[in-house]
């Protein structure tokens, strides 16, 4: 709770600081804010508190995911260097929007009430609509914003309709009470409830970019300035999945059979679309967008497994994915800034020669995303697969995921090939700010650390 308040306040403070001439102070200040929030958030560990008439609960689940999201934001911010350098960018506003959207994200992992879920999603989404279109003169950015906005608000409607139907069936928005309500006995209510449940599932699936509600993802990710895409791929996705899991776990555990077929279908479709779609993308960014769809699929597998291993699996996977995404999008941002916006694989040619550090970081992140050992991504996948296999009857899903993971390696390794095995050609050294380099190194260390000693964080929940 404190972190929500702090973030809101800091957001506003930030806007005021934005009036200052120099933008130099903004980044350190924002980082400082986030560090404070991160610390404050940790105080909530093992200290469950509820707020607003039981509408928010800050429990370990919330603290853990808030931790991931705040940490990720912390790690993302240093890549805003190009905005600091540019005169005409409204950096303070961007930072504030990020901080505000983080508030929404925290609400999404701490909600106890569907109202809060809705509010959280909207706070997060509306901020993202703006940020997606932040490059006002770029038609691509415009288009991304419009697509995101139109589809997003459309699915807000769907989500809301679902919530309302659930409310109609159970008479409450409180997820614990929904979980306790026995609606299955009543025929009419049952239909309403199931309908609501499915619409809710669809609404959230859209937010986490699960197929077949993924169509916005590649386009929006591509059009959005990379700095914000990073945020979308990490914080938004983490919040969405955490919210999804919490919702299903608290409210719909009893109606498992009515949503399971839908969710498993969505999961399979997401895995297939994400992995297959990424294969021939000529642009790294678009490839990463598809890859983010596929990771939504892996994350959804925990939901399909739906057992006591799921929570930790989601947590570890989200963490490893978020860190790896920061690295990959971070490097992408640096590279595209240096290559006049070129996001293709060719832009990475010879990076191993010109920027060994960036190339190494990118390699580690690609391996982590691909789930190859020595990186956190490996254990992420291992825990997810474990959770699914532990159910005993879904081995086929793991086999499918394994095959698609192999497909995944196919496109991730293409980046590595471009960096190390293609000649640099015209490509010159990419300038890297100290902050960004530091962040990349921290992320790399984290990825490898969790890849060697996953026990550090794998059993927190």
């Amino acid at each position, binding site marked *: 709770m404190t972190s929500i308040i702090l973030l809101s306040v800091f957001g506003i403070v930030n806007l005021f600081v934005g009036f200052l001439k120099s933008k130099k102070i903004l980044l350190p200040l924002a980082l400082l804010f986030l560090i404070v929030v991160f610390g404050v958030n940790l105080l909530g560990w093992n200290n469950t508190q509820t707020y607003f008439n039981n509408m928010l609960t800050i429990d370990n689940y919330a603290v853990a995911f808030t931790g991931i999201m705040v940490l990720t934001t912390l790690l993302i911010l240093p890549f805003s260097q190009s905005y600091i350098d540019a005169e005409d960018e409204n950096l303070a506003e961007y930072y504030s929007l990020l901080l505000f959207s983080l508030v929404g994200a925290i609400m999404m992992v701490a909600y106890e009430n569907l109202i809060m879920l809705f509010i959280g999603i909207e706070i997060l989404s509306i901020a993202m609509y703006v940020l997606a279109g932040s490059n006002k003169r770029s038609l691509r950015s415009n288009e991304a914003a419009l697509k995101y906005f139109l*589809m997003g608000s459309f699915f807000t409607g769907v989500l809301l309709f679902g919530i309302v139907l659930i409310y109609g069936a159970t008479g409450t928005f409180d997820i614990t009470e929904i979980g306790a309500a026995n609606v299955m006995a009543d025929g009419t209510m049952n239909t309403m409830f199931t309908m609501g449940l499915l619409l809710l599932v669809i609404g959230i699936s859209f937010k986490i970019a699960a197929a*077949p509600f993924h169509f916005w993802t590649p386009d929006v990710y591509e059009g959005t300035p990379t700095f914000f895409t990073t945020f979308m791929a990490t914080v938004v996705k983490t919040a969405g999945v955490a919210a999804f899991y919490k919702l299903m776990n608290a409210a719909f555990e009893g109606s498992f059979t009515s949503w399971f077929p839908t969710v498993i279908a969505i999961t399979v479709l997401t895995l297939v679309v994400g992995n297959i779609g990424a294969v*021939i993308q000529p642009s790294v960014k678009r490839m990463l967008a598809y890859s983010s769809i596929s990771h939504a699929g892996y994350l959804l597998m925990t939901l399909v497994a739906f057992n006591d291993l799921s929570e930790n699996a989601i947590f570890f996977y989200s963490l490893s994915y978020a860190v790896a995404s920061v690295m990959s999008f971070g490097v992408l941002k640096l590279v595209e800034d240096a290559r006049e916006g070129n996001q293709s694989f060719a832009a990475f040619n010879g990076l191993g020669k010109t920027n060994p550090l960036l190339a190494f970081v990118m390699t580690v992140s690609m391996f982590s995303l691909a789930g190859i050992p020595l990186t956190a991504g490996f254990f992420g996948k291992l825990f997810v697969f474990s959770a699914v296999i532990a159910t005993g009857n879904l081995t086929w899903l793991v086999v499918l995921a394994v095959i698609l993971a192999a497909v995944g390696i*196919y496109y991730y390794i293409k980046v590595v090939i471009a960096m190390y095995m293609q000649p640099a050609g015209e490509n010159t050294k990419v300038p890297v700010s100290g902050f960004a380099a530091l962040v990349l190194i921290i992320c790399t260390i984290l990825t490898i650390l969790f890849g060697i000693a996953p026990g550090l964080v794998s059993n927190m929940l």
Partner: protein
Amino acid sequence: MQEIVMPFNNQAMALLCLLIPLLPLIGFIVNGLGNRKLAKGMVSLIGCGTVLASFLISVYLFVDFTANGSRAYTVDFYNWISVGDMQIGFSFLIDQLTLLMMLMVTGIGFLIHLYSAGYMSHDENFGKFFAFINLFMFSMLLLVMGSNYVMMFVGWEGVGLCSYLLIGFWNKNTNYNNAAKKAFVMNRIGDLGFLLGIFLIFITFGSVSYPQVFAEAARYTGGIDSTVMIAITLLLFVGAMGKSAQIPLFTWLPDAMAGPTPVSALIHAATMVTAGIYMVLRSNVLYVLAPTTMEVIAIVGIATALLAATIGLAQNDIKKVLAYSTVSQLGYMFLALGVMAFDSSIFHVLTHAFFKALLFLGAGSVIHAMSNEQDIRYMGGLRKYLPITFLTFLIGTLAIAGIPPFAGFFSKDELLAHVWEHNKLMWGLGLLTSFMTSFYMFRLVFLTFFGTFRGTEAQKSHLHESPISMTLPLIVLAILSTIGGFLGIPAVFGENMHLLQNYLAPIYGYAQVANAAAVAPLHIEHSTEWMLMGISVAVAVVAIILAYVMYVSKKQVPAAEGTKLSPIHNLIYNKYYIDELYNAIIVRPIMWLSSIFHKVFDVVIVDGVVNGVGKFVVQSSRTLRFAQSGAIGFYILIMVVSIALILFLNFFIG
């Protein structure tokens, strides 16, 4: 029944035994590493000296052995391969047979080494040559001394390797290399059979060591002609076919004449090729348990003898004639084995070693004198220029033709007598072979040494008798070829005069137990024996006269290359086109298969599937891409349809 004493605890004797193969190995290493650095004299000293030393030690062992009551013993050095209950020791077995072979190998080996010192003196790779023949001695000695089948196999493959190295000794010549490769590969075909035989022996008897295997075999309860025994003996015989150049694996031996002539004498006439006979003889207890196999051996033997003899009739290369004669004689030896005339077989091995080594060395002397000309059509009248060579060569020819009292007469005669008892048809064919042998050998002698010289003037001016190091071995071998036969004087000349038979009797101890009938001594009427002797000598003499009439009186010279020959002559001249046949039914299909495997199976099918999966993924991706049209309306439409579908499926299907 002869018990084999084991293990043997006399350290000094063990060292001596070890030294016999080890000395040539040392010679190999020294000469091999010092190929270009050592002086030629030094090389010959080391090369010949080590073999001589081995020979002397062998003699000592022999003397010691007979002095100590002729008791066989094994010498264990160390446990070579040990896996579970399989223990393969690095150990030697010393018994009558081993000693005989050792003496023969080292003795003749030494003579040929000595000969080589002269014959090869102009070769730039003199040291390498000595290294290789020393290595051969080492391998051959392991072969005969080993006390288990795996040790025999070690030597077996070792001599194959040396054969390869020596046939292709002049490795700039591709044809020679091909001949070497052919020899090695054909030997390996046989080796596979041998190896499988060893496996079956191990599985059947639980050991590969001779003492255990033989003792087990003597106690064998499966009866005569059991499937396992036939399988074992046939598999071993496949090995023998390869090494001893029997049908169908004989074609490498004539090609092997590509090697330097001493090699042909040593390896491809006197020692290595008789390894097959040694092996059968060594395993006599197994073979007496499988008379069916013996019948097969006899048939293969006589067929080989006959086939090779016919080919020999039409060959014009001095070494090729000898080569086919070797194949033919080897067939003879197997024929003897097949009719269970074990003693006659080894007797023939021994006499053949003398006279065939002699003949080859003599041929070498001729070739040496003729400046590497090997075609007898361009020789003639050489007896004036090469008197010693001529004389010794003649003795060898008389021996091989079976003219008394030369060595071949005794062994061949004894052999044929056994065959007569066994099967009259085989005897008839054997006699025919004998006739042809006599004919083509004298054809060779007459064309080479009689008549007038048909070579070039340049060759004529170079004609000379060979140096002493070459003629000395010729003389020694000629003496041996003359008197060697007296080792086995047949019963008609006196009971118990057959030294060899008496000497070797103990090695059939186990066979006696296993199948006494098979190794019962031959009792043949003296009158019959006289008759057989008479016939075979008569046949040989007729052949000589025929050859004399054709090649000396009528001065016929074989048709030059390219002349049209009668169909049968053409068939024989081209060795029945067997090489071409093998090429068509084995080599070409394998080559074809190789291409098919590689180009079709590997690249198209297996890799095609693998790449196909990749292509499928890429194609799917390409297809999936079209869904991402970029139009918001289309996106929302699909998503709405999806929503509808989900709801529909949940409410109306699920």
